[in-house]
């Protein structure tokens, strides 16, 4: 059979091809693959599947070099989500995904549907979602537009997860002018399953019915995948009708129905209809199983009359799944869906003939040989070159930056850093997220360096955190890529969990720009090196290119979503000092490094200098030492040094738990030789502040792993404040002031937000 145009199809002209985002070369490739001119439907399908978003055409070769294997990895990249074994026959499925472009245009729905999509990726694996995380990047809060985006995006994330009933337990947020106009919204979902429930999205079995399940298909979001593959510009405004609306209620029903479906044994494979909808989900499922499929678009339940095959194939209507059922079990599928007031319709079949065929009734409207639609996609390795301007910024010596007058009092600098939106407590955000539903949250947002969830019926626990200091990546992508992984691992280790695997979300600018592709190549390489060194393979992820706005690319942001496992969840520790008169031990050592710091950005408005060095062997040893000490029950709290350095980390330990603050007396005279700014606010890596009743044991644990550790002070009653001696001018700060700066700044900065109207009526 061969596909022929339908009556009313537009003629395939060079202009139409260009409008579909295909280059001349790609069009020729498509014609060669087909051996004839494409139909309009075929053009649409190829345009979507060969979009950056679906095809990874600019990233695949580099991603292939990432480490993906370990004995505990049950499912690496290539499926809807990665899966690792936890022990006791249990496994964790997890994945992160971006929804940057939709959120820039329509913050509330864009963020909400991002959460919906990543949830489906996890529950299609047979896992029950147990936690959500979110990693957000915004421009400066001085801008009303940015405040509008923050308000809408946070509300969108919250409303969706809250309604479905999945706790949002952790995340990270950073503000920098480079994200002006192009916020980053990365959502991560973590699910729990029994190993034998693991389900894949691989079509198999000739004669098995293919079913559309869940919501009906409407005209929303057509070409969303290619939209995500373009620069944001004013033209994007014109594309607004592409916005999809989330329906978390239907998602909740779909979640329950899907898990029941998997338990019933009636299904062979399931995949979310995400980007490029039915076209990509059906083509990818067929390619994974190396089978042929036929789909009849007239059988797809639609929301509006008169939809064409083109529209039905490419619609990105939310809350839909594609299911391959066992032959003769389609009634079971329908019954389970009906119980949840959802529908399921047989729309096609797995066939022996090696083709991907779409019909409209009897009329073949698209037909591709074998699995070429997926496997024949072009792959590019663009030119890579470092930007000379960025190299020059990196070369600047941070120590030559003159101090401002107020800095003569280090308490002023500390307060100023604590109130920086990037450092300040994120309570304004996560108070909008239900973090305790499902009653597994041992440590929610703000309580520890990573979230901790218990697993019912097991002693074990799951830790999770997202991280990426993109300023480091901007100034030195290789080093920054390493640090993103190392910091996430450290955060997970701080709560007592062994880092096990990551998912990543690579947010970059236009890869066709040599300096962007260079950033990408280096950052991915750095990530890979860190994953190998820390034994945390990559089990999946997402690439989001074209994060640009009229003034240039965003900071390169390879966000890491780290999963760690605790053998005994009762042993987890928080970040806040737990009592007065505990010893404070610093694992790791200060250095003279000051480059790329939040200090330079916040106090001096500078993005410059070399980021701190990342020594992966030392990172690993630090993690091992920490896990030893926590595992032995010798640690009362642990918090790593990140943005703002040692002084900020100490302050956070004092004030993080606002209802039970503790003071601290610290002596840093051992490092009197270091420049004071670097000692207090430099961001040297591989450092953790621990409070302990057994300082000798903690120091010994560090020594065993070849890491330095120092007893630097003692915790105190809150009234004593934070006191740091052993520096030129001692730092003395009452906790009330520090706490106000840390806990209230974000709310204050958001106060003039225009009320985000949408959703109010619900």
């Amino acid at each position: 059979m061969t596909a022929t145009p339908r009556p009313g199809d537009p003629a395939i002209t060079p202009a139409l091809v260009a409008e579909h985002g295909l280059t001349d070369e790609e069009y020729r490739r498509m014609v060669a693959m087909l051996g004839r001119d494409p139909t309009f439907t075929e053009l649409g399908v190829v345009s979507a599947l060969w979009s950056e978003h679906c095809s990874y055409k600019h990233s695949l070769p580099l991603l292939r070099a990432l480490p993906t294997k370990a004995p505990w990895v049950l499912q690496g990249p290539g499926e809807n989500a990665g899966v690792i074994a936890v022990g006791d026959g249990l496994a964790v499925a997890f994945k992160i995904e971006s929804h940057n472009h939709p959120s820039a245009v329509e913050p509330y729905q864009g963020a909400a549907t991002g959460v919906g999509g990543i949830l489906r990726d996890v529950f299609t694996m047979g896992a029950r979602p147990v936690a959500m995380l979110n990693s957000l990047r915004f421009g400066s809060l001085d801008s009303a537009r940015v405040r509008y985006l923050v308000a809408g995006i946070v509300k969108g994330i919250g409303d969706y997860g809250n309604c479905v009933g999945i706790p949002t337990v952790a995340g990270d947020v950073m503000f920098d002018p480079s994200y002006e106009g192009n916020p980053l919204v990365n959502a991560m979902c973590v699910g729990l399953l029994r190993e034998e429930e693991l389900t894949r999205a691989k079509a198999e079995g000739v004669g098995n019915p293919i079913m559309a399940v869940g919501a009906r298909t409407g005209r929303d979001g057509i070409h969303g995948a290619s939209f995500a593959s373009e620069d944001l510009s004013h033209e994007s405004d014109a594309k607004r009708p592409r916005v999809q609306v989330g329906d978390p209620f239907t998602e909740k029903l779909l979640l329950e129905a899907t898990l029941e479906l998997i338990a019933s044994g009636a299904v062979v494979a399931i995949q979310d209809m995400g980007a490029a909808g039915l076209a990509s989900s059906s083509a990818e499922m067929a390619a994974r199983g190396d089978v042929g499929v036929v789909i009849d678009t007239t059988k797809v339940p639609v929301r509006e009359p008169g939809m064409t095959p083109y529209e039905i194939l490419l619609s990105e209507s939310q809350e839909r799944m594609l299911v391959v059922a066992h032959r003769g079990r389609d009634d079971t599928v329908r019954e389970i869906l009906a119980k949840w007031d959802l529908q399921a319709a047989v729309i096609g079949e797995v066939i022996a003939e090696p083709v991907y065929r779409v019909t409209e009734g009897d009329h073949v409207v698209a037909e591709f040989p074998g699995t070429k639609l997926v496997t024949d996609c072009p792959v590019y390795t663009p030119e890579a070159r470092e930007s000379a301007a960025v190299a020059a910024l990196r070369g600047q010596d941070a120590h030559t930056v003159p101090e401002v007058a107020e800095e003569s009092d280090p308490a002023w600098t500390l307060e100023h850093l604590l109130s920086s939106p990037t450092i300040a407590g994120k309570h304004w955000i996560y108070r909008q997220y239900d973090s305790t539903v499902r009653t597994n949250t041992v440590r929610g947002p703000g309580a520890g360096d990573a979230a901790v969830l218990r697993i019912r019926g097991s002693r074990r626990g799951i830790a999770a955190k997202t991280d990426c200091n993109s300023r480091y990546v901007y100034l030195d992508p290789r080093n920054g890529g390493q640090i993103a992984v190392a910091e996430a691992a450290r955060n997970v280790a701080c709560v007592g969990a062994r880092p096990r695997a990551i998912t990543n979300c690579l947010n970059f600018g236009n890869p066709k720009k040599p300096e962007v592709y260079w950033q990408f190549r280096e950052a991915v390489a750095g990530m890979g090196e860190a994953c190998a060194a820390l034994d945390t393979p990559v089990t999946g992820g997402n690439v989001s290119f074209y994060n640009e706005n009229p003034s240039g690319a965003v900071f390169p942001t390879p966000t890491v979503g780290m999963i760690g496992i605790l053998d005994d969840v009762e042993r987890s520790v928080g970040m806040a000092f737990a009592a007065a008169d505990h010893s404070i031990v610093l694992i790791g050592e200060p250095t003279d490094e000051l480059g790329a710091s939040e200090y330079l950005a916040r106090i001096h408005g500078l993005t410059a200098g070399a980021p701190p060095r990342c020594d992966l062997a030392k990172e690993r040893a630090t993690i091992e030492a920490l896990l030893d000490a926590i595992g032995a029950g010798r640690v009362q709290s642990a918090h790593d040094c990140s943005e703002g350095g040692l002084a900020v980390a100490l302050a956070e330990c004092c004030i993080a738990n606002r209802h039970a603050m503790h003071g601290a007396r610290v002596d840093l005279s051992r490092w009197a030789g270091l420049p004071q700014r670097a000692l207090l606010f430099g961001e040297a890596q591989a450092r953790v502040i621990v409070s302990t009743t057994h300082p000798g044991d903690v120091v010994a644990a560090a020594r065993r792993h070849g890491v330095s550790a120092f007893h630097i002070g003692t915790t105190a009653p809150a009234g004593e404040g934070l006191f740091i001696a052993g520096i030129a001018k001692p730092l003395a700060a009452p906790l009330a002031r520090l706490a106000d700066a840390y806990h209230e700044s974000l709310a204050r900065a958001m106060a003039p937000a225009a009320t985000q109207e949408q959703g109010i009526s619900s």
Partner: protein
Amino acid sequence: MKVGIVRFPGSNCDDDAWHAVVDHLGQDAVMLWHKAHDLEGADVIILPGGFSYGDYLRAGAIARFSPIMREVMAHAKRGGIVIGICNGFQIACEAHLLPGALLPNDAGYRSMPVTVRVERTDTPFTSAASAGQLLTMPIAHGEGRFTASADELDRLEGDGQVVFRYVDSTGNPTPASNPNGASRNIAGVCNGGRNVVGLMPHPERAMEPLLGSTDGLVLFESLLATVNA
């Protein structure tokens, strides 16, 4: 004691209520499907939290018409115990099992621990608590602003139907301790017959030290004491 937990489409604290009753109280529980017409012999009905029907239109408005609700209302009328938690409280108000209404919070969705004061111990959900006892439990809701006309509020106070009030750590009902703008800091009420109790905080999330609070236990223990009395 046998507890029936109603599962509406969109309920998401049904499992949590189950664990509270079965794992932490060691009692029998049964999940009741919203389309069912039978309470399966449950002594106590829990309307759990969540977003029944997405809370579209108004929280609880659509769920109250579920077939099972006819049985729940009959159970309440017979004097049977019904506990509404969060969305369950909203459903109970919409079903007129409880007075008042729960409107959108004055300042948006709030997820955080709150402290409430037990105002009455003559209800099946508070009989094991002491009057004035302070309980810290999580809230997580966008529509929990308890509202009724001034006359109705006076009547509720007079009849002792205000069961829980948001308070600060010293037990005072201050504006700052009111997370949603509820009239008179009301966090939970009961009906005139005192057999139906609704509250916005989640006692089922405060049942074990590992999760930070055990203050919800006393409320579930009250049920057990009442049913076994």
